[in-house]
């Protein structure tokens, strides 16, 4: 160890001051501006369980998104075969996202393979069976390509969700991918979780389709949907708030004329006539041209505006609409209209998402937890302190000093590392107290033993530290091992516990061994004391 007490005091003081420096912005958040710049910006983050907020794990339904791609590829292969005048029967997407084709002969298969090699590098032949002189071929997307596409779907979803959350106005959101197809979202301080979930999870696929006015809706509702048309539910009627729930249905042409991809902007406006909010959308150049053409060709017909498979409105086209402006009306509240505008601006999710996990802590519960957590730590510390002084007298006081420094340095280190303090993390602090005390108990008990053997205070202290050191190291390393696995496998608050415990153990070695020793050495070296108060 260092021989010079002065040097050691300097080191200890430097560590404590540095910790206080890093800790101050967390303890006093409202520093005056002039002083604020002198201190670091890092603060101890409070976990969602302490400050309230929402934790979401979403799963991106990548298989669903692949369906569309495979469907398109199937159609392209069909076109390609026709172009090459290859005879075939049925090119279709199968439920497991493969494409099944029936060919009349071996030669036709050779043609198919040539076509694939030339135009469809992403497809490969999964199996081919020859039966009754017919070749049944199954095509699938190459695995590498599937992986690439899945990744890009998840990336795109992540980007879209980030855009939406940014516009929703959450400070310090955390949106990160998890595993292959999951997205972890943490939104601190969210007050209306239902709305947030709704906003984040909406696929927000905007489509425009014509209403099928040649066929009877009643007939279709009875189950006879004409080919090329589909039935779709309407958004809730304005009467729903009063409790009367009534579904409206629309019979639509299946073909989608335009999608939200052609959008440039979406904004909430209030209608002059009724004072109702609506969403004004603006198409981009291409979208405006398409919209102009579509409205021009279909004057006096009804155009349905569909979001996520629900018809919001189906106004009659009165005249050709140029300029690329349109509006979505529906019985919205201002808030709903605002959220709709957000999701339209941020774009649609490339695939639907499912909620795997949702945890919300209200802000009042969080505050409660902080208050109770801090109170229990302080009471625990006082009890331990009293006990130590009672048992070890003056040496107990030294241990208490080490304890207090331990907490200050621990919190300072947490601020420095941007660590998150969670409720179990507070418990981690409590355990750190236990570990720190244990180190001092080990040293003191050893010193007592040496004193009993008749050694001088100085020799007893030296032997106490020397003998206890390896024990303390071994015990702390093993506990650290447990903490590492906690960190590796834990999530959220549990991870916070592991972080706090790990830092706490390392700090406790410093305070309980290094700092206390300075005091004991000072007392036993410089003053010729006859007895130790231990």
């Amino acid at each position, binding site marked *: 160890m260092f021989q010079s007490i002065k040097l050691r005091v300097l080191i200890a003081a430097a560590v404590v001051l540095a910790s206080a420096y890093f800790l101050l912005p967390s303890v006093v958040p409202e520093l005056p501006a002039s002083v604020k710049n002198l201190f670091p910006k890092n603060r101890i983050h409070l976990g969602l369980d302490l400050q309230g907020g929402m934790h979401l794990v979403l799963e991106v339904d990548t298989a669903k998104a692949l369906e569309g791609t495979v469907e398109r590829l199937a159609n392209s292969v069909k076109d390609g075969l026709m172009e090459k005048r290859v005879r075939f029967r049925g090119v279709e997407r199968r439920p497991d996202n493969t494409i099944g084709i029936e060919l009349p002969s071996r030669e036709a298969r050779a043609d198919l393979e040539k076509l694939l090699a030339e135009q469809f590098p992403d497809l490969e032949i999964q199996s081919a069976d020859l039966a009754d002189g017919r070749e049944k071929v199954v095509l699938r997307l190459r695995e590498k390509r599937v992986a690439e596409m899945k990744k890009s779907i998840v990336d795109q979803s992540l980007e879209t969700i980030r855009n939406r959350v940014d516009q929703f106005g959450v400070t310090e959101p955390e949106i990160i991918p998890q595993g292959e197809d999951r997205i972890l979202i943490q939104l601190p301080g969210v007050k209306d979780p*239902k709305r947030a979930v709704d906003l984040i999870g909406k696929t927000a696929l905007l489509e425009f389709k014509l209403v099928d006015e040649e066929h009877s809706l009643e007939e279709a509702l009875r189950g006879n949907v004409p080919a090329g048309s589909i039935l779709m539910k309407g958004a809730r009627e304005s009467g729903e708030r009063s409790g009367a729930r009534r579904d409206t249905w629309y019979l639509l042409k299946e073909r989608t004329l335009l999608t939200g991809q052609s959008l440039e902007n979406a904004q909430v406006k209030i209608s002059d006539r009724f004072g109702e909010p609506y969403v004004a959308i603006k198409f981009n150049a291409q979208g405006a041209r398409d919209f102009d053409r579509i409205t021009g060709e279909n004057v006096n017909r009804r155009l349905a505006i569909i979001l996520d498979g629900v018809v919001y409105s189906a106004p009659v086209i009165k005249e050709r609409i140029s300029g690329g402006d349109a509006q979505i009306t529906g019985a919205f509240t201002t808030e709903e209209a605002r959220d709709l505008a957000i999701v339209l601006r941020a774009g649609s999710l490339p695939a639907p998402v499912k909620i795997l996990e949702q945890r*919300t802590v209200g802000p009042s*519960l969080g505050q409660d*937890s902080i208050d109770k957590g801090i109170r229990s730590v302080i009471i*625990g510390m006082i009890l331990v302190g009293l006990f130590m002084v009672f048992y070890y007298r003056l040496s107990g006081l030294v241990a208490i000093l080490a304890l207090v420094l331990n907490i200050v340095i621990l919190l300072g280190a947490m601020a420095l590392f941007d660590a998150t303090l969670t*409720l179990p993390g507070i418990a981690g602090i409590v355990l750190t107290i236990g570990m720190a005390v244990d180190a001092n*108990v080990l040293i003191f008990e050893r010193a007592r033993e040496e004193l009993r053997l008749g050694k001088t205070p100085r020799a007893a202290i030296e032997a106490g530290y020397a003998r206890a050191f390896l024990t303390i190291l071994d*015990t702390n*390393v093993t506990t650290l091992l447990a903490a590492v696995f*906690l960190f590796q496998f834990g999530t959220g608050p549990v991870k916070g516990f592991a972080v706090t415990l790990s830092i706490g153990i390392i700090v406790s070695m410093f305070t309980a061994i290094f700092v206390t020793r300075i005091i004991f050495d000072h007392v036993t070296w410089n003053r010729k004391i006859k007895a130790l108060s231990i």
Partner: protein
Amino acid sequence: MELIKPGINFDFVGKMRIAALVSAAAILISIVSLIAHGGPNWGIDFAGGTVIQVKFQKDVPIDGIRRSLDAVNLSEVTIQQFGARDEHEYLIRTAESTEDLKGLSGRIEDSLAAAFGRDGFEVRRVEVVGPKVGRDLTQKGIMAVVFSWIAMLVYIAWRFEFRFAVGGILALVHDTIITVGVLSLLRMEFSLVIVAALLTIIGYSINDTIVIYDRIRENMRKNVRQELAQVINASINQTLSRTILTVLTVVLVLVSILLFGGAVIFDFAFAILVGVIVGTYSSIFIASPLVLAWERARPSKRKRK
């Protein structure tokens, strides 16, 4: 002050058989309880489901809450008082979880609002865990515990000797089983936080064991002629006052969390308290005697002169 007079010499090793019986009985009871209850009382972290913590303005009968939820049509709901009586807080649990956006919790909230008024209550916490995540978390929890056992086995085998490592790990397995058994007997919920508690217990218990092992190793070098049984016994006695002191301080802080930490952290602190007590017992009566048992079964080749 001294709790334990120096020079004291309890015959811990002599109580080995009794301790083995006590431990065997405790493990048996734990396992029987687990089997009888069909495994731990899995919380939603592992089983999947929904938990809603609601704080009402005034006292509300549990039946009233249950009736108000009839409309939501849940298959299995338990409603339970949470924390102190005068806090009017309840936990509403159901095994169901939804993946759609409307969300079960939203519907439950609406039903409560219809019965008690929007301002009559406050939703303080909502947790929804789907079955897929539950499976993941279970796997991760088990891996965390098992890997930490292995890591410690390796570390102790490296720092001490293999037989010490085996004794230490068996004691850890012993502590984990009995703690889980106590939680099972009390029908306490087994959540992610409990896994954290188990790992903490593992850390604490091995800590305690190593202090004694360390002394055994030291004494073995000092008194090479002494019987291993005597060395072990002396070592336990020499470290006894430290053991008791440390346990007391840890118990002090844990009790203060139990009393003042609030209901959310109560289970966590309780599990650790149980584990700390079991862990201290096992360090003295299980871990060290196991080293002796190992030695008797397979005497170490390094002949002690």
